[in-house]
């Protein structure tokens, strides 16, 4: 027996459980693959397109030390804590090494399997899989790159203006002297 008040507190603490699940489309006539699994439901909205309802997600779990992050690519449920996992599918090191390289490992075989069963991919995973060539590129990456380029162009303009002003000043000083 558990007190009702304790249950209500537990609910408020673990507010992640109140998050909605994300939806994935399922291939036509592929519902037979998911027939035996209770966790997976195939349901259809009013437009008649079948979708998968599943609480698995592939995401980054942060390990490492302070000021030194290191991520595991992990299959977990959406309502679990960030560092828990059901299966590890790879790693990602965001700090570059001596040769200015960032290392990323991906178990493509198992990632394919879990995507086919309707796992949700978070934004950094989508970016990594797009950069590796496994999936098409994420549009958020392209927008980020373009913004960077614009910012760099603006900074270069400011620098060139400052250098021109300093050159003019030195020239005027020489003339005066």
């Amino acid at each position, binding site marked *: 027996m558990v007190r009702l008040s304790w249950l209500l507190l537990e609910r408020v603490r673990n507010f992640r459980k109140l998050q909605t699940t994300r939806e994935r489309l399922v291939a036509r006539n592929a519902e037979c693959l998911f027939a035996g699994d209770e966790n997976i439901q195939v349901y*259809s909205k009013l437009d008649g397109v079948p979708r998968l309802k599943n609480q698995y997600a592939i995401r980054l779990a942060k390990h490492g030390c302070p000021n030194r992050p290191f991520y595991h690519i992990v299959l977990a449920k959406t309502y679990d804590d960030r560092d828990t996992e059901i299966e590890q599918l790879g790693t990602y090191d965001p700090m570059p090494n001596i040769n200015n390289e960032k290392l990323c490992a991906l178990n493509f075989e198992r990632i394919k399997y879990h995507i086919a069963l309707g796992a949700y991919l978070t934004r950094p995973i989508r970016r990594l899989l797009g950069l590796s060539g496994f999936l098409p590129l994420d549009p958020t990456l392209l927008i980020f790159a373009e913004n960077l380029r614009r910012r760099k162009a603006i900074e270069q303009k400011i620098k060139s203006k400052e250098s021109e002003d300093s050159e003019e000043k030195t020239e005027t000083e020489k003339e005066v002297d």
Partner: protein
Amino acid sequence: MTTLLHRFTVAKLLRVACCRSVYSGPEAYPVFSRQDFAEDDGTWEWKKLHNIRQRVVDIQNGINHEGDKKIVDDEARKVHLLPHKIYSKPEEYYPLTDVAKVVYGNKTKDPMPKGIKHKMDPDFIRPEVQDLLKSLTGRDPEIVFAEQTGLYTHMPRVRLLTTEQLNQEIKKMDEKFDEMLEMPPVMLEREEIEETIAFDELLDGYEEGKLIFTDITVDLKPDERCMVVREPTGLLRRAQWDERDRALGVYYPKRGRSLHKDPVFENPQVAFKNQFHKNILERILVEFVPDSKEFIHYTQMVYDEIDKESQYDLLRSTRFFGGLAFYLAKHKSIDGLLKNILENKSSLPDAADLVKLFCLINNESNTAKNLKDLNNCDDFRIVQVYVQNDATMKKILELSLQTFQQIPQSAQNF
């Protein structure tokens, strides 16, 4: 009509069971009377379905009513819910899935780009060359089975054996000799991988460093593993050989291999002074792949040093002597070795074997043309022909040959 009666009785039972509790108000459950059901033939859903089915049957027969178009459109939209095939049994609709196929059938076996294979040196593979190299190395058990620092040594054992058992033990030792004297392969240098998969210009400048992706699927050989590099310009290409070796060293490390280069291979003068040539060669064998640029360059460095100082005894009856002799024969610099064999070891058959090796590898040299029947000639004659035609240290070798000429043939091999 039987269904209507069933629903009426169910409603009656519900009314009786639900609403007579203390905590329920006056309108806990709506009260249905017989008059409510008298006008309807059934509930509105039931009526609608009944109507639609009748209409569909009428359309098939050719009878048209008002509102047929809407019914047909609604039915047409539901076609994608129907299976493309009509199943007679439920087993056909829910077939058993082969889990092993689903999990292991889609392996990412990424074949290497065309034209890149691991090629052995064709001269090294020939069995005649292998026999000659094995005979040149020698089989001194004191050097082959010497104590190695760091390994456990057993106490000696004394046993009484019959002749048959003795012969069996000798056979075992011969097999062990072959194991310890197994020559590391001489291979051609591997070509660089240059294959681009894609070029996305829109990604230019998204990062300041490279991204290396490796495939971590289980049960893949290192040649089959896919490794891909994305550069900050947006170019997606396959990883080159040094990047591949580094990534394999991170995720699948091997004992004895390190990720960073040892400066011993760049400045080995101190090691050569203390006669650590054999240790360096063993280290090279463990760390590098016999295909790679570094393996070939560093082994040739060691061989050149030995040839300069004429320290051939360091590698005699080890597994590196075959590589030494092959390298010298290929680059046509046998003279130092010949001199060592004739003076220090003083055995003509070994010298003849060396010259035979030279002829097998360099078919177009003058010695090979003059010596067409190698088996019929004397050992002395073979070496003499070489000294006359292709030798650089002619006079020194002629002097050392003269000793064999004066000694009678009976005492030559003593």
